């Protein structure tokens, strides 16, 4: 078992002439919450999409629990225990809340023919119901995903990702667009997932309130390059970070 659940070495992503990410490294310790922050266009989402295997890096290596996954197709990552959410919600809009989370459990709904053919595979339905309960979505289980309000849609994406039973949870701006009360609930939920269930979380986030409250470590990216890394305290006081990014945020706060 490698010390770091996720390790990214020397990652570079070029789109034509533009270098979106430049020789970036990150190591995510098992059982921690690690935030990736930076101003708009810093390359956070690009990095994130490489790790979840939606983009192919130009150079570099991605190791999951010591195993090289740099050339894995995106659809195998769920089976390896990597779940992700999307910045601009990618729900199965016409389908019910329940069915959305059931599809999240896709990799666990096989095994036997009986289970694969069943509308309610054994062991899976119970877990799905549990996740709905936990995210407060039970009252909406038969509602079409697209008829939910934004906050509940965000929660549904999270519940669906959790149905994968991930080791590593990749969250792309989970707090964006949420109200303060909802952010507080998300804060509690993510902390609980990490501390009690040992799910390692890597999140890209702009909402500093959340990042500073829950992260064990923070990595700061600017113009595709890592400019700082450390505890939330260290990063908050780092002059280059204040200059690049937090300075503006603090001024507004």
């Amino acid at each position, binding site marked *: 078992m490698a010390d770091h659940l996720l390790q990214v070495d020397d990652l570079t992503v070029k789109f034509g002439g533009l270098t979106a990410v430049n020789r970036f490294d990150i190591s995510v310790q098992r059982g921690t919450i690690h935030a990736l922050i930076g101003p708009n266009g810093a390359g956070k989402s690009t990095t994130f999409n490489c790790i*979840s295997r*939606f983009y192919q890096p130009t150079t570099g290596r991605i190791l999951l629990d010591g195993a090289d996954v740099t050339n894995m*197709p*995106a*659809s*195998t*990552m*769920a*089976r390896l225990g990597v*779940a*992700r959410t*999307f910045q601009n919600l*990618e*729900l*199965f*809009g*016409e*389908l*019910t809340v329940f*069915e959305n989370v*059931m*599809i*999240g459990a*896709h*990799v666990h*709904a*096989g095994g036997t023919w009986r*289970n*694969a*053919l*069943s*509308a*309610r*595979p054994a062991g899976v339905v119970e877990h799905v119901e549990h996740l709905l309960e936990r995210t407060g979505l039970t009252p909406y289980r*038969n*509602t*079409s995903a697209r*008829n939910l309000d934004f906050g509940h849609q965000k929660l549904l994406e999270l519940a*669906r*990702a959790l149905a*994968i039973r991930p080791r590593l949870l990749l969250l792309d701006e989970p707090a964006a667009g949420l109200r303060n009360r909802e952010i507080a609930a998300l804060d509690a939920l993510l902390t609980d997932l990490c501390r009690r269930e040992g799910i390692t979380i890597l999140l890209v986030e702009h909402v500093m309130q959340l990042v500073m409250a829950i992260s064990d470590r923070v990595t700061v990216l600017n113009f595709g390059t890592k400019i700082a890394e450390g505890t939330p305290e260290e990063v908050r006081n780092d002059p280059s970070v204040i200059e690049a990014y937090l300075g503006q945020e603090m001024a507004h706060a």
Partner: protein
Amino acid sequence: MRDKTAAVLPRSEADLPGLSARSSVPLGRVALLALAVATLALLPFAVTGYVLYIANLLLVFVVLCLGLHLVIGESGQFALAHAAFYGIGIYTSGLAGNAFGWPFPLSMLLAGLVAGAVGVVIGAVALRMRDIYLALATFAFGEAMQWVFLNWDQVTGGPNGLRISPARLGAFEILSDRQAYPVVVVMTVLMLLLTILISRSRLGRSFRAVRESEVAAMAMGIPVRRAKITAFGLSAFFAGVAGSMFATFSTYIHPDSLGFQTTILVLTMIVVGGLGSIAGAVGGAIVFGLISEFLRQTPSYQEIIYGLILIGFMMYAPRGLFAFIRDKVGGGTRG
């Protein structure tokens, strides 16, 4: 039928009467199922051979619609080569009977498998594209197949068409529509049950996931391309079986009836019934099949009327006839 939850259920939920996983099956649905069973069982005693011919043909279209439902309704892939696979099914089972005297259950299976196999090969190529490009690529394949049917004289009889010898099983021969009817009914029910099974299973969920969001499906561990090819192959299999059903009660096939207008007819049926719902596919085939039977009196206007119906539904009832009626009757229970 004024069931409030039914209006909120997704149009993809495959809860046909009596087969729902939940215990509380709405009374209206049980009644509808009973009516359908009674009609199918009693029909041969009440009507002439010609009406049974129409019934057989309608049931063939039900199976065609179920097949197109799998690829378009469930998986959201606009594949427009259904008539080609239907034709492959007809010629395969016809030739297996003509040339080798195969018993019809075997030639039916062969027809489905050959069409399905061609579907997988074509799908593997065509499904690299999506939307309008996929529609065009599959349309082109459909046209090419019709050309093959028309010009491969030694096998298909070319423009002279193909005489299909009577379907047989041992000493038993199917010589009339009345004799073919039970076979056609049993096959339709089997294919309907198979559709429900697929739709409710893990495979059906992965089809709907692909339809709704390919990127999300990928993130959930669904191999998107494989799911699309599977849906396309299954759809072709269904069309092939439908073709072999046609061959049990038909004595002749001509390539003219295997062109794009047949694909459009099946597409219109599932749109009229309501895209994405199995009940819609079945209901659409029957309702629209009956309409087109009446339109037979005025063949010159037939295509125009089809077109108008299709446009009308897309504009005013995109979720299909049955959802449209339910919404009107139910008084807009959808939130």
